[in-house]
Structure formats: structure tokens, C-alpha cells
């Protein structure tokens, strides 16, 4: 198993280490519920150094990325990022990722840890067949780059003391807290350049910090020190999963895979059909026009029961009740105190308020389809 530069820190903090996508990562430090609630109420700090970082630059970078990814990078100003997907010719998702335009012709892609090999192989193959490949430089910097995510409503109270700013690249701001959602800036930390974006995977306000691997441990320690008085806690992959499930963010391998299109997964908003030709466009255009065979839905248990889990069967109710689909993500929601999840069903069943049943260890428990996100911050 691979280890991030923060392995020693995780051990010191009492992290319970598990295997994830080939990496030895902390699933929790104290408890998933504690860490989840800390992110919702104050702040949590996640090691995301296992994720991949690919740099694509040059005069041909924009065209190459627009041909390979579903969203439109032409919309990006320098210092701005977007959620996007990379699909095969059948419209099946190879990965979901963030693409940041750092400067006019330099892009940083943040990709899933479990897909680094697949993504790099795909990108290299596409680049080899790209007419303007001599105008594109491709660098996989995953092995030498680290990252952390600091998320929660109180992050704005202490991140300024950790990183005073101003930015030295990307979006021009005096303070890191001036970055708007999806903006990214280069900042100097102890004389070293780091990229900080106002993004996250939790549904809370927060930032993600990308830096060379050898500087990540100092960044982690400094952030923990700065945030502790505000309730900042280290948070593991367990809380990362419950947080993203509550707000219905997809996780590759669950909501997304090579046999599922972004349209089926409900993220068609990030597919720019009108930008011109890109891999998988024809399939997705047809689906947008004519519909799909399956649709991602969110669900909530309606009685006290065990929570839904991946692969549990979803059943319709009433006359002719039958298995109609499967759960792809599920957990007990720490914020709501009830079982929640997402799954795929035929579009005819995919309306909110439709009662369903989840098969748990041979018995069916009542649930209901709900709109996304399942958890919404109280106003």
C-alpha cells in the first residue's frame, strides 16, 4: 500500500488506517460521527494527498481538454476551476475531476486516487492521437504532490492566520478568504508557492491546498494549530464519505463508472453539449434528448432500521412489487440520524416522494425517494 507524506501524522493522531484505492489512509481518528459533525459545525481537516495531480499546458491545452472532458474549459478565467468528467466513446465515465485554469495556458487536473493509472493512460492515449500534440505538455505530478482539504463554517475564521495572502498567481486577491467558490490562487507559505482553491467535497465552505509533497506535513501541522481554537479536528475517509453522501456528491466506483454516463448520474449540468465535439458527446446528446435506461435517485429510510448499503436491492411497493434497482452509496446520516443513500432505478420510478423498500439481510424496510441534496444546511 502507498502512503502519503502525512502517514506519520495520522499515526500520531491515532488514525485508524485502512486500505483505500491502494493507499493506507485514516478512516477515522476518534469517530466518524464526531468528525462529520465537526465539519458541519466548525471545521475538519482531511488528507487528500492520495489524489492525483496532472498538469496540462501549452497552446493546444485548451482544445485538448475540451475534446477530452465534458465541461467547457473556455468558460474558465485564469484562476478558476470547474467540476467536469472524462468519458469514453460510449459516454461511460472514466473519472470525475476538477479542472483548474491556473494561467492562460496551464491547467491542473485533480483526479481520484483510485483512477490515477486509468486516467493517465487514457490522457496519454488521447494525446498521442491529438493533431496538435506538439502544442501540449503533459505532466503527471501525483507522486510528488500533496494536498489537504479544510472544510467547515469556521474555516474562514482561521485560514487567514495560516495563510495571510495576497495571492501571487491565479485569481488576484488580497486575502485567501476573498477567493470565491471555484476560484484558485497561488499563495506563498513560508516562502513556498502553494495553490489554494475555494472548493470541497463536503457541502460546507472550505478550501483545498495543493503543495509539493515535502511541504504538506508542515502545512497540516500549521493548519491544525491555527484551527484548533475554533474546533478544527482531523477528519478521515469515513467522515468524507458520510459528508458527501448527505449532499449527494458522486463517488467514482459508486454513482459513476465506465458503464454509467453523466446524464444517468444526474450531472448533465457539467456536460457542455454545445461546445463542439468531445469524446462521448453523441451518446450523451441522445440521452439528454430521449432519456436514459436508469436514473440516479436519493433515498431516505422512513422507519428505524439498519442503514442502506451499496448493492442492497431497491424494491417498488404495492401491487406487483419487484426489485427495481440497487443502492450504490448508503450510510447512517450523522446529521439526520437516519439511513440515507443513492441508487439507480428506471426513470419511471425516479420521482421524489415515491415510496420504495430497501432489502436488508433478506427483509424489506420502508424508504422514500427524496430530492437532492438529502441534507441541506438550515438557513
Amino acid at each position, binding site marked *: 500500500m502507498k502512503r502519503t507524506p502525512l502517514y506519520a501524522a495520522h499515526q500520531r493522531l491515532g488514525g485508524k488506517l485502512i486500505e483505500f484505492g491502494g493507499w493506507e489512509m485514516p478512516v477515522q481518528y476518534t*469517530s466518524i*460521527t464526531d468528525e462529520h459533525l465537526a465539519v458541519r459545525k466548525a471545521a475538519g481537516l482531511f488528507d487528500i494527498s492520495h489524489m492525483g495531480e496532472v498538469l496540462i499546458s501549452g497552446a493546444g491545452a485548451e482544445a485538448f481538454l475540451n475534446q477530452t472532458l465534458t465541461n467547457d474549459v473556455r468558460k474558465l478565467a485564469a484562476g478558476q476551476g470547474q467540476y467536469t468528467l472524462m468519458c469514453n466513446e460510449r459516454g461511460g465515465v472514466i473519472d470525475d475531476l476538477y479542472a483548474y485554469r491556473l494561467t492562460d495556458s496551464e491547467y491542473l487536473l485533480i483526479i481520484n486516487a483510485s483512477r490515477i493509472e486509468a486516467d493517465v493512460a487514457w490522457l496519454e492515449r488521447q494525446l498521442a492521437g491529438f493533431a496538435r500534440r506538439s502544442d501540449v505538455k503533459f505532466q503527471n505530478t501525483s507522486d510528488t504532490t500533496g494536498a489537504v482539504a479544510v472544510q467547515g463554517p469556521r474555516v474562514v475564521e482561521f485560514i487567514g492566520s495560516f495563510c495571510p495572502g495576497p495571492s501571487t498567481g491565479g485569481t488576484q486577491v488580497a486575502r485567501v478568504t476573498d477567493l470565491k467558490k471555484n476560484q484558485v490562487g497561488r499563495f506563498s507559505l513560508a516562502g513556498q508557492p502553494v495553490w489554494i482553491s475555494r472548493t470541497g467535497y463536503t457541502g460546507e465552505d472550505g478550501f483545498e491546498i495543493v503543495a509539493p509533497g515535502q511541504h504538506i506535513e508542515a502545512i497540516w501541522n500549521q493548519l491544525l494549530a491555527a484551527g484548533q481554537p475554533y474546533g478544527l479536528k482531523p477528519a478521515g475517509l469515513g467522515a468524507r464519505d458520510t459528508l458527501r453522501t448527505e449532499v449527494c456528491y458522486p463517488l467514482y466506483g459508486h454513482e459513476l463508472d465506465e458503464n454509467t454516463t453523466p446524464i444517468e448520474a444526474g450531472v448533465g449540468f457539467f456536460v457542455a453539449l454545445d461546445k463542439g465535439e468531445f469524446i462521448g458527446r453523441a451518446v450523451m446528446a441522445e440521452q439528454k434528448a430521449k432519456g436514459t435506461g436508469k436514473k440516479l435517485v436519493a433515498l431516505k429510510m422512513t422507519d428505524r432500521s*439498519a442503514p442502506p448499503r451499496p448493492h442492497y436491492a431497491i424494491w417498488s411497493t404495492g401491487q406487483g412489487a419487484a426489485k427495481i434497482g440497487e443502492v450504490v452509496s448508503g450510510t447512517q446520516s450523522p446529521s439526520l440520524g437516519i439511513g440515507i443513500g443513492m441508487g439507480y432505478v428506471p426513470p419511471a420510478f425516479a420521482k421524489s416522494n415515491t415510496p420504495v423498500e430497501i432489502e436488508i439481510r433478506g427483509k424489506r424496510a420502508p424508504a422514500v425517494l427524496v430530492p437532492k441534496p438529502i441534507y441541506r444546511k438550515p438557513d
Partner: protein
Amino acid sequence: MANVPSDLKYAKSHEWVRVSGNVATVGITDHAQHELTDVVFVELPEIGRQVKAGDACAVVESVKTASDIYSPVSGEITEANKAVVSNPALANSEPYASGWFYKVKLSNPAELNALLTPEQYQAQIAGA
């Protein structure tokens, strides 16, 4: 350091047994609840069910996973703890007291000799 009461017997699979006459009360150990952390759901066997030692007869769900609970002894289920079903957190806060799971009328009390003593269980979890 996990709490291992000296008046109980233990199974390798982290259940404890308290015997009173020919009725055994069963729950999960402090070590087990500490490994699981937040218990969110407990499914207990039906009253009247016959179980054999080693049968999976209950389920404990944490946020992340479902774990089978194995009966350390054979017999008939006589009681299931409603309190831990309606408040699963009791399995974490009071695993040996209000967080107990079920009671069994022993059909083969000699099985108790095959269970671990507190010292043997302590040694097992220390080596873990």
C-alpha cells in the same frame, strides 16, 4: 485500555457472557465497541429462537459497516434488550450494563468451559 470485567466469560469473537443460574446474558465487549465506534443500529434475535454456539444471531451496525454477532452459547433466546434497539449508543457507552443484547436459556452449560477467561481475553486483545 479496554475494560475486561473479571466476573464475565468471553468469546474470541468479542462477545461477553454473564451467567445467572442457567440463563446467560450476552453483549459485546468494550474492546469491540471501541473498534466499531458509533453503533447506529442493533438487530437482535427473536424470542424463542434456538441458537447453537457459533451461530450468527445478531447484527451490530456502525456508521461504516454491519458486523455479525455470534452466540457464544447454545440455547433458547428468552429476552432481547429493547433499550439497546431504541438507543444503539448504549452499546458504546455501557457495553456491559444497559447495552446488553439478549439472554439465552442454556441448553448445554458445559459450553461455558470452552469460553475465554478474562485473563485469556485480555491477552487476546493485547496481542491484537
